């Protein structure tokens, strides 16, 4: 059986786009399809009913290629990021890693540690709004997936600044803290809710604040911690 090759591409246009921009948008998708191998196509777009996009879908489906069109609000960064990350997560072999335990870390990792780049997925970020492309690129870095910029100049690989090892260190303790701080909460309450020892709790909380998944605010001489939208997104993803 052929190894699945999945192409994810951003596509769309800005609110002030002209006919030339529309032509460029479809050209970028065509070039990505030509330059990057695929037998499954996923398009992230703010214009799911675009006639030319539908045409491409029809052509690819006739060739036996599964095409998914995912609608995003290309001006809402958080929504774009969440949808892209969910899409990437659904394509990664996470389940096979689940349950594998590293004895040194008392089985707390969600993923087994194994440096890898997922070569079966290519992501083209040249289409759509800058915001959608930016959200897609950051999600790719976090998940260790290669991104490309395809346009009339050809295919350009974006160097992968691979942050997956950081993501692999996200453990169930972190998820507990992230979920407990869904609503703003004080230090003692959060520690109690996490059911972690003082030292573990402090270490994990510092890590989550550093990566901006938890923010804190000082009000009336009291510090309250709250999980950010991105933090909550990852907490849900990792607890699945």
């Amino acid at each position, binding site marked *: 059986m052929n190894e699945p090759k999945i192409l994810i591409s951003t596509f769309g246009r*800005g*609110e002030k786009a002209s006919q030339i921009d529309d032509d460029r948008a479809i050209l970028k998708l065509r070039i990505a399809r030509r330059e990057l191998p695929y037998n499954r196509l996923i398009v992230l777009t703010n214009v799911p009913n675009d006639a030319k996009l539908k045409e491409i879908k029809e052509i690819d489906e006739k060739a036996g290629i599964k095409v998914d069109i995912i609608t995003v609000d290309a*001006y809402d*960064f958080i929504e774009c*990021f969440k949808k892209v990350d969910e899409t990437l997560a659904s394509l990664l072999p996470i389940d096979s890693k689940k349950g594998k335990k590293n004895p040194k870390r008392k089985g707390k990792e969600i993923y087994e540690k194994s*440096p*890898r*780049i997922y070569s079966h997925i290519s992501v083209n*970020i*040249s289409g759509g*709004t*800058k*915001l959608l*492309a*930016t959200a897609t*690129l*950051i999600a790719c*870095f*976090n998940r260790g997936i*290669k*991104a490309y*910029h395809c*346009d009339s*100049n050809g295919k*350009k*690989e*974006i*160097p*992968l*600044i*691979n*942050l997956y*090892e*950081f993501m692999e260190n996200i453990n169930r303790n972190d998820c507990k803290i992230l979920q407990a701080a869904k609503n703003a909460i004080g230090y003692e309450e959060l520690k109690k809710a996490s059911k972690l020892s003082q030292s573990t709790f402090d270490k994990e909380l510092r890590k989550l604040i*550093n*990566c*901006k998944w938890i923010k804190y605010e000082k009000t009336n001489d009291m510090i309250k911690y709250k999980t*950010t939208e*991105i933090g909550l997104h990852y907490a849900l993803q990792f607890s699945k």
Partner: protein
Amino acid sequence: MVVIFGTIGYEPKSIIPTLTGHANVEKLILFYTSKNEEVMKAVNEVHNYCKKMNLPYEDIRLEDPYDLIATALRMKKALQQHKDKDIIFNVTGSTKVISAAAIIVCIIDNIPAVYVNERTSKEEPLPLLNVKSKNIVTKKQLEILKIIMKNGGSIRPVELSKKLGIKPASISLQLRNMARRGLITIERDPDNMRSNIVRNAEHVPLLLYSEENE
């Protein structure tokens, strides 16, 4: 004091909210890529705004809007010149490749990145992971990359192990690991088919920049 770095394309509105949204802004560094009339119009508008606000600015014109590595290196150079300052990088304007270069530089150097939402004209922070540099490249890997770089960008594993003073077998696992991370490529040596040749990835100069220019 804060130095604002910003990429700019057709829209002056993409940078001004960052100038107004932060206290103690000391300087603006503007990156743009073309002599296109619309881009220059936007740049002039930002210049005029800075003059009115008595805010010093510096322009950095990038040669190729699609050369990510050259752009990122130019950004690293400018960041190095302001390394003792607090920096905020607005990545909203210009081409997607230029923005990608800015995001990469921000991740490597732990610089807060922001964008201005085209619809709301509000500045929003980008959720870049604040990772330690060892999460991107370890000390040992950095040492290997430096040796390869000094050797002209490529080296045979045997020569590399000699330079590191370790057995060739010990280095092969590390090299495979680095290849999986996208830091190097391992190919058959065209001059000796029994040997491999290790090459640095295109973006390695970015990872070595700070060390070499301290």
